[in-house]
């Protein structure tokens, strides 16, 4: 006896749209039961997790925080989706994020305390994107010229970036008034992305950049020749070769773009909510963004919602730790269950599970 997954002949559109909703509903029921088991009210828990962050009254502190948290995730994930659609595996977005943060910060550190004008921030953003792109091109070039697996090289370069960041903030860029602690001086206003509104929220212009990135990503994938190439190479590599598309060029292009977006996210995060460079900048956004990319079905619009949703679970989870005194682990279990159901629902829509009673039985020839 064995279980097999069998591709369904046709997919129902209604079910395809309902799939994520079913997954969320199943997650809610499961997590509700979990809360009931540990003696907390499930309704109260779900309210703290999902309703409270979304219904926070003016000045919308929690909603702003969701956007702040989602901003780097969405930016990185849009870039990664271009790679993943074309079956090119950039796993090192975290490294490109850090290199972008370091490259952009160079200007902020060099101009610190001088009054040089408003061109500083835009140039920082450009430097960040450039740095990320160049760092992303290293594994791409290694693959194109030496056939090295980009999965390995891009991942290993994360550690290199981490140590490079560490070296800069402990050595040359250390704040001279910081008692030798490993951090740069706080960035000047000219080198910082300010908040959009007065008051407690931290919503900043980086979120607008993320929205623009989503729109450009959607247009590029859906409406341009390059987008077509990416999709074709992913779906039918042989056909793509026959039609004369150069896979190597595509590897370089997607790595450069995803590296640039990760680098941009890095410098936006440092010049925005953090405000200085220190080793704590490395907090795993580049890896979380991989989840966001797949949760959003490798579709820029989907990624926008996936990023916002994942941010919501982070912020709701914090609220739950405070209001319900549940451990952080429950938030992680919760995120895990959600991913599990999303993937399970997806699979069960595309495939049907069949129980084969005897493996040896041969299907009738005329079936």
């Amino acid at each position, binding site marked *: 006896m064995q279980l097999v997954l069998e591709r369904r002949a046709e997919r129902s559109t209604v079910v395809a749209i309902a799939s994520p909703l079913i997954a969320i509903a199943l997650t809610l*029921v499961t997590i*509700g*039961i979990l*809360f*009931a088991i540990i003696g907390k*009210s*499930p*309704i*109260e828990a779900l309210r703290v997790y999902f309703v409270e962050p979304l219904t926070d009254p003016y000045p919308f*502190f929690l909603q702003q*925080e969701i956007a*702040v*948290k989602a901003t780097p995730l969405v930016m990185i994930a849009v870039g990664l989706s271009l790679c993943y659609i074309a079956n090119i595996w950039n796993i090192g977005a975290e490294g490109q994020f850090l290199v972008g943060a370091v490259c952009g910060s160079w200007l902020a550190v060099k101009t610190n305390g001088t009054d040089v004008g408003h061109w500083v921030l835009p140039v920082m953003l450009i430097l960040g994107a450039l740095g990320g792109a160049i760092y992303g091109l290293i594994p791409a070039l290694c693959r194109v010229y030496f056939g090295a697996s980009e999965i390995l090289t891009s991942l290993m370069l994360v550690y290199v970036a981490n*140590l490079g960041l*560490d*070296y800069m903030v*402990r*050595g040359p860029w*250390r704040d001279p008034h910081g*008692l*030798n*602690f*490993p951090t740069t001086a*706080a960035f000047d206003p000219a080198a910082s992305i300010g908040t959009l509104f007065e008051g*407690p929220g*931290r919503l900043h212009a980086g979120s607008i950049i993320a929205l623009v990135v989503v729109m450009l990503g959607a247009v590029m994938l859906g409406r341009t020749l390059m987008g077509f190439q990416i999709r074709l190479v992913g779906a039918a590599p042989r056909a793509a070769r026959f039609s004369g598309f150069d896979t190597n060029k595509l590897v370089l292009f997607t790595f450069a773009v995803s590296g640039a977006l990760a680098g941009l996210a890095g410098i936006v*995060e440092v010049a*925005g*909510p*953090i*405000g*200085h460079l*220190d*080793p*704590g*900048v*490395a*907090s*795993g956004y580049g890896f979380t963004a991989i989840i966001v990319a797949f949760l959003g079905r490798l579709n820029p619009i989907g990624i926008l919602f996936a990023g916002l949703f994942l941010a919501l679970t*982070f*912020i709701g989870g*914090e*609220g739950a*730790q*405070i*209001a*319900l*005194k549940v*451990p*952080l682990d429950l938030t992680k279990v919760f995120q895990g269950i959600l991913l599990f159901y999303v993937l399970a629902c997806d699979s069960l829509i595309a495939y049907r599970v069949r129980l084969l009673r005897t493996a040896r039985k041969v299907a009738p020839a005329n079936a």
Partner: protein
Amino acid sequence: MKKLNIIAVLAVLVLGVMTFGAVHAADKLKVGFIYVGPVGDLGYTYQHEVGRRALQKALNDKVETTYLENVPEGADAERAIEQLARAGNKLIFTTSFGFMDATVKVAAKYPNVFFEHATGFKRAKNLATYAARFYEGRYIQGQIAGKMTKSNIIGYIVSFPIPEVISGINATMLGAQSVNPNVKFKIIWVNSWFDPGKEADAAKALIDQGADILTQHTDSPAAMQIAEQRGIHAFGQSSDMIKFGPHAQLTADTDYWGNYYIDRAKLVLDGKWKSDDTWDGLDKGMVVMAPYTNMPDDVKAMAKKTEEAIRTHALHPFKCPIVDQNGKTVECKGGDRLDNGQILSMNWYVKGIDDKVPGQ
């Protein structure tokens, strides 16, 4: 299909029946804590959690404590601290150096909430700082090591070259030199606070280079376990690690924050809280030496005597004259000893250490 229906109905019932509102105690002082690690790290964060529990126990009818664990030191920190402030916490402890700027920003936005940042140096009207004089315990450990070593080589596993760590190395060396002028240190930087694999590798390498005593400024008990296996001695760090080295641990330089947390909460309750820079050690019980074990009685007696002398301020580990690595006598800004500023920004080694401070 029917079974699925039944499960769904049951689940809805469970959800429906289990509703009850959260009960809030209105009059209690709410105290919040932000931890950089998980409460189960058996080291630094765990000791803060022990302190929080002591506070909750001591003032159970007057305070309500909450914590957020594993908070990253990046952009998330500011939001996490602000969430605690918004939830009505009137006293908030941010327990890691990396939370400094985030704490400063939130403190500016919530002038009626009192903030306390551990191991930092930025203060405001409603933002105090606190730290422990870990180097006091390390001086005692240095003396014990100086007496106990046969090879005259002490292995030292360190995390990051920040002043707290450098002053710990120096205090250990000064303690060791006070009883044994021939002591040498072998130092390995593992560039992490908590990485049991790297810490264990460093411990093995140090033992292979002849070290017969290990000390560490990293948080895991890995080195202690290696010392136990190899039959040598070691010192615990942050918390008592005797469980991991019943025959190896000589003592441990442990942090105990409970008294401080209780004092500060009482000040808020009495309306007397003000921004301070607290830096306590053995005298106030913020640094506590784990029991002296696995050593002869005369060494134990010496350690206890030194501990008493430091506690009563008769002895200061950084008493002058102090000569630096290059043979230059260090200026004594604190009269007969280094002043707090010199210790808090220390980035040089004392004479006798033949390593180089990274990044200098």
